[in-house]
């Protein structure tokens, strides 16, 4: 798999070849669309998995991202790279999900506060328990460090978290991150700076 993945990564920027695939997909070639998906789907899934922190929502974000891309591919005008375009969709979908989850949590805590639903706090715990860090895969690794990093990441704002994710874990350049956010490289730099300051304070002093 490693070799296959490396090959996939190398292909990412083979833009001429990709342009052709996009045109085929725009003309209704599903096979071409699936090839495009295969070039980027691992990256998109990783982004979704990191941002949402659990398998179920990661899968939902993954699917929503590519279905959106499928429906709107006809409007793709090669003004950005396909990679940037698909990342932009994925980050928007991820942020939507995070906001929805926030709303849900607020509703639940409101209901549990009213003590109308004694079973609701349990549901809230369930939500928390479905996070990435309670997945069995994670337990195999250093749980303490992992937990600490997770806690540190929670101190970041949504945008700081996103920029940090894209730069640190996805390895994207700040220039591209600016484009993905529909903003500038300078803005992305500032978010990254703020994120690293917070993480540094949390991870090296606690």
């Amino acid at each position, binding site marked *: 798999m490693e070799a296959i993945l490396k090959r996939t990564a190398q292909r990412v920027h083979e833009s001429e070849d990709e342009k052709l695939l996009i*045109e085929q997909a725009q003309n209704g070639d599903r096979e071409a669309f699936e090839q495009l998906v295969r070039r980027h789907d691992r990256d998109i899934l990783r982004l979704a998995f990191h941002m949402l922190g659990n398998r179920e929502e990661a899968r939902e974000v993954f699917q929503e991202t590519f279905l959106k891309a499928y429906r709107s591919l006809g409007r793709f005008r090669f003004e950005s790279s396909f990679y940037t375009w698909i990342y932009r969709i994925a980050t928007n979908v991820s942020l939507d999900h995070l906001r929805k989850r926030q709303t849900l949590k607020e509703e639940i805590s409101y209901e549990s506060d009213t003590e109308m639903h004694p079973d609701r706090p349990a549901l809230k715990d369930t939500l928390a328990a479905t996070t990435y860090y309670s997945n069995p895969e994670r337990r195999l690794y250093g749980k303490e460090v992992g937990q600490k990093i997770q806690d540190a990441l929670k101190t970041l704002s949504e945008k700081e978290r996103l920029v940090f994710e894209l730069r640190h874990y996805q390895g994207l350049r700040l220039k591209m991150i600016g484009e993905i956010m529909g903003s500038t490289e300078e803005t992305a730099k500032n978010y990254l700076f703020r994120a690293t300051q917070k993480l540094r304070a949390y991870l090296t002093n606690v």
Partner: protein
Amino acid sequence: MNVNCKDYQHQITLLLYNELDERTRGELELHLRECGVCKDAFESERAMHSVLAEDTPSWDVPSDLLLESRKALADALDRMENKRSWWRMPAFSVVFTPMRLLESAALITMGLALGVYVSNQQARVAPPVALNSSANSQSPAIPRNGTISNLQVINADPSTGQVELAGEVSQPLRFHGKIEDDTVRQLLFSALRDANNPGSRLKAVEVLSQKPTDESIEEALINALVYDDDPGVRMRAVEGLKTFANEQHVRAAFMHTLQNDENAGIRIAAIDALLARNAKDPELAQKLTEATKKDDNPYIRTKVLQFVGSTK
């Protein structure tokens, strides 16, 4: 700490992410040798990077999650397409130079559907057909032995007389070659994806699993194992993959089979392949226990128990 130190500390972040140009980098490095405050900030930020690096392996996406997500997406696309099936172009079109929308007076787009005969691994490719029509030419060159189907008028503009059509041209194909040959492999992969033709998928998987020496073949077999609706095809894919059952991605595919394949025979083939190539692996034992805890097949459960015992 001089007035510029705040700027330098911004640059430290960028330095560690390799986002500084050569000149700025040189200036910063010079400053770090002179300024204790910034040097401390640099060391602290570098320490943060090492803490983060300790946990990096756990940030990998589980392979089975990728497989699940791909499958769910493919199913969702299928459902969308069933609602407008004409939209679907033949699976083969990607192998060859595709038809493009031509920016000429009359736009005609055609997909090329090729019938593949995979018999004794011998087939011959007819040249792909690109159809286009300009204002000057009379009609597109439709191959003499080809047939057109699913013809659709996509756009028609009465004011200019421009028409855009889409459809499929089918023509027979024969191709001779060895499996090492890229075209042969691509044809076999196409045959393996031909949803309407399980017989040809079975033939293709048989041929491919004889010599799964190439990563692209391995990938195609994994896709067949995970996605194919036909149990015969999936069983053949297990056969082709079993010698690689110690490799991470093949293991992930087999785990997926154990958890999701309805066919007990295929699950049995997968567990046998996994156990034959992975001795005394406690991590695998744990995953297998997890994956098969709801399996109603006694053979599989016994095998897993034996394997778990062997790791203790």
